[in-house]
């Protein structure tokens, strides 16, 4: 039926409300965190003034998408992806270095971070590829292309020395689960992460690895004993054991050779294997103090001394969550969590009602990216995740990230609006 396409749904109001709510929360906290102590009401710091411009331009971007022809996305998906890849290569040569990472194009006081847009472009490209008629996430060829589509930008961003942004691309792994990635791969990933943490503990505490290997072998033997009738399961268990042992024996080398000292420090700090009262540890401690100081109802708008006096680092970008915690307390945190959680859940719900794979992939990509950013960023401020400098979507100050997240969200909402 040709008419079906012309049915105009509304842009999903729940997601839209959540978006507006989050951007508003973001601005309030940026305003507060960047204000001086005796700043007059309604006078804006440079950071807050810039953020207003970013918000306004992000709004224009959203409006543009809302009225643009949805086919344009499909049409330009690969082109956009190609452009993003090109920019991420170019930044390696032409970018300026900020905090050790070469991931910014700078024009005067303004900067563009192409890695933020690479997320959107990758989501679009994956959405287009997996949405292509006859393509499924199955078979060596398709799986390889799909993986390459996000591993390529991830690699480029790693080359930019922006580990945090690169890490976010694992969100696409998570997304692919919905498209048929076997569950055991995700479970394996969790298992391998677990083994790595064990290894780091053992190494730091100077305990012999043979205990670990012994326990692993013992557990596997027990499991095999009880399932000995099932030959397949026995074989699988043995395979897992061998892989785990090999992995455990070699991960230490990777940990020490691939990761840099500051990265190891941050990991060991979170694992509480290390105390560091002056460097990152100081920042982490101050971050926890800030959030803890909020208590139940917060210290009040503009009253957060931890953030305002610069005890918390990057207080309006990566550590903006501290301001929410300090000034608005547990109540404010729960309100924020509620809105953010609502957006995530809503995106899953919306994705599931899509009729096309392309739209669904876009929705799950957005949800996964927003989730990974949230988990890493908030986890970092409360000392659960090592310090990794990535923004909190819609909240952290900064143009590139706000535009990229707005694009990501509204491209999907636009698809949802035009669903058949």
């Amino acid at each position: 039926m040709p008419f079906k396409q012309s049915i105009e749904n509304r842009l999903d109001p729940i997601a839209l409300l959540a978006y507006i709510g989050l951007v508003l929360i973001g601005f309030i906290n940026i305003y507060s965190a960047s204000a001086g102590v005796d700043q007059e009401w309604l006078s804006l710091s440079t950071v807050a003034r810039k953020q207003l411009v970013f918000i306004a331009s992000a709004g224009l971007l959203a409006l543009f998408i809302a009225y643009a022809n949805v086919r344009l996305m499909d049409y330009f998906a690969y082109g956009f992806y190609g452009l993003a890849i090109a920019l991420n290569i170019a930044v390696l040569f032409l970018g300026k270095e900020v905090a050790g990472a070469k991931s910014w194009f700078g024009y005067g006081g303004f900067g563009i971070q192409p890695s933020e847009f690479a997320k959107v472009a990758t989501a679009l490209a994956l959405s287009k590829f997996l949405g292509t008629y006859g393509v499924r996430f199955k078979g060596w060829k398709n799986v390889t292309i799909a993986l390459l589509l996000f591993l390529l930008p991830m690699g480029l961003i790693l080359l930019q020395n922006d580990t945090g942004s690169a890490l976010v691309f694992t969100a696409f792994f998570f997304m692919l689960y919905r498209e048929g990635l076997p569950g055991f791969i995700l479970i394996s990933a969790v298992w391998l992460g677990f083994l790595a943490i064990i290894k780091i503990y053992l190494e730091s505490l100077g305990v012999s690895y043979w205990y670990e290997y012994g326990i692993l072998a013992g557990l596997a033997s027990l499991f095999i004993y009880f399932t000995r009738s099932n030959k397949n399961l026995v074989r699988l268990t043995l395979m897992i054991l061998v892989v785990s042992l090999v992995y455990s024996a070699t991960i230490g080398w990777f940990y020490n050779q691939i990761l840099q000292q500051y990265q190891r420090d941050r990991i060991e700090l979170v694992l509480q294997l290390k105390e560091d009262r002056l460097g990152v540890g100081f920042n982490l401690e101050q971050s926890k103090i800030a959030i803890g100081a909020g208590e139940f109802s917060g210290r009040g708008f503009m009253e957060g001394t931890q953030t305002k006096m610069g005890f918390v680092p990057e207080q309006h970008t990566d550590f903006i969550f501290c301001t929410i915690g300090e000034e608005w307390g547990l109540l404010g945190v729960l309100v924020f969590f509620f809105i953010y959680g609502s957006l995530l859940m809503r995106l899953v719900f919306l994705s599931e009602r899509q009729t096309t794979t392309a739209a669904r992939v876009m929705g799950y990509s957005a949800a996964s990216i927003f989730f990974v950013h949230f988990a890493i960023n908030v986890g970092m401020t409360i000392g659960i995740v090592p310090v990794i400098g990535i923004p909190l979507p819609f909240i952290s100050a900064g143009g590139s990230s706000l535009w990229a997240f707005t694009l990501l969200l509204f491209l999907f909402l636009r698809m949802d609006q035009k669903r058949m």
Partner: protein
Amino acid sequence: MDQNSNRRWVYILTFAAILLLYAMRIAGLQLGTTPYEQMAINNALNKVTLYPGRSVLFDRNGRILVRNTPAYDLKVFPKKMGSADSVLICQILGLDSADFAQRTLLAWINSKKRQRNNSYDRSAVFFSNLSPEQYAIIRENLYRLKAYYVEPKTDRLYNFNGSAHAFGYLGEVSEEMLESDPYYQPGDLVGITGIEKYYENQIRGIKGVKTVWQDRTYVEQGTVKNESFNKPAIAGPDVQLSLDMALQLLADSLMAGKRGSIVAIEPKTGEVLAFYNSPHYNPNLLVGQQRTEEFRKLLIDPKKPLYNRAVKGVYPPGSTVKPILALIGLQEGILTPETRHSCAGGYHMGSITVGCHPHPSPLALAQSIQISCNAYYCQLFRDIIDAPKYGNVREGYAILESYWRRFGLGSPTGIDLLGESGGNIPSVAQLDRRHGERWRSSMIISLGIGQGEILLTPIQLANLAAIIANRGYYYTPHLVKQIEGYSDTAWDRRFRTAHYTGIEPRHFVPVIQGMEMVTQVGGTARGAALDSVVVCAKTGTAQNPHGKDHSLFIAFAPKDDPQIAIAVIVENAGFGATYAAPIASLLMERYLHPERDTKKPYMKENMFNARLETP
């Protein structure tokens, strides 16, 4: 819908699990027991001490004696110290690396200590009492000295030389005081001696505090608005001393080149009018940066200028205690005004001879004082302690001793200075140790003429004069007349309670008559008489094992309405009338007639020019 639709629950549950985990963790941080809010406040607040001015000290006529002058301490945030400003600060202050390291260590220790006391002040004194030059240079360079700031406080400025032993001086607070009184911070100036020390708690005023926000780099970000965080400093109340500066200045010039002590008391109140020691020191030396160095010099000065003779020096009183012995004899009924004792050039008893100078004999009481007959008082001493009514000499002596003690002898008078000596009145036990338990009056007879184990401080001597002037009682001598806002406190009442000696006023009549005759024709100190009023006095010459006799003199005037009682001791000056009497006389004249020139300029000139001290 494809077959993987159920996998949505993995996403939903993962999202929910992380949100829940984080919410619980945050709730744990925010509702847990760790005092994060206090930690945040401690982070961002710095308490800046506002130093009050110490009390201004006035003399009894309202002249300013001691006032304040601004002083500056260089404070440091040890955590923030860097190599650049360290080099600069060493240059400005002229520190070598060892000195710098020591100061840095001390600052670290003190700033830690402050934090433990739950103070927000993470800074510590690095260098106290900057010189004006250093202060000027540091002010100019403060923008380069990021870890440092200057905290103003107050130091002292003394307007008059010659009264240092009364005023005392300030010094940096000691470790013990820091431990015992949380009011103090390292580097604070506190009274070390004198009135500055005795009245420290009143004089210091009350420190104020200004609480400021400061960011991570310790840059001040404004004052905390909340009133409870800020408190103005309250200056110490005005303190009026009972000293008369005119007397102090005159004493200073009269005592030039002599060693000794002068104390004058207003008998009616116990207020100390003059309090002077020679040698003394210039109190303005013990101020500011050179304090420690100058103090060290004064400490090793062989002349002992820091020694407060007036309350610490002990002297055999010699004949100055004869009137007291007469009063005790009269009160006990052992002596009458008409009792006469003969003197044959001294007191002879067996092998003992106490010499006396030639004079008519026998003498009645008044003449015995006028002429200061040793034989009379040796006899009287024995009459008292050997009196049959006491049973034995030990009991008799105990009675005498208790009378002496009621005259404020043998224990500190309680003047408002610390470290006062009580002198010595030998107890029965002390005599037992000295002479064995079977001593007799003849063995201790020199006590009767103020020699032997009996030792008095100048303040006790002056107080004796005041007791006689009052006909039997005294108020505890004190240097501070009033402190603004402290009237009718325990301190005040202590100085307004009369102490009675138990001698009836009528017995004073013949004794005072004798003391009046001392300054008349035939007396030992005729030169001490004044043209306008009757001066009652007693000379004394105290034998001194270390050299020439000390010249002693006590007096009060006028006879019938005493305004001033005075004791003067000039060490190694010989006979009491030679130096001590004229000096006392000139001081009394000045006090009683502040508006007129002396009628005895020749005497004043002589005293100015007399140099007894061996250089």
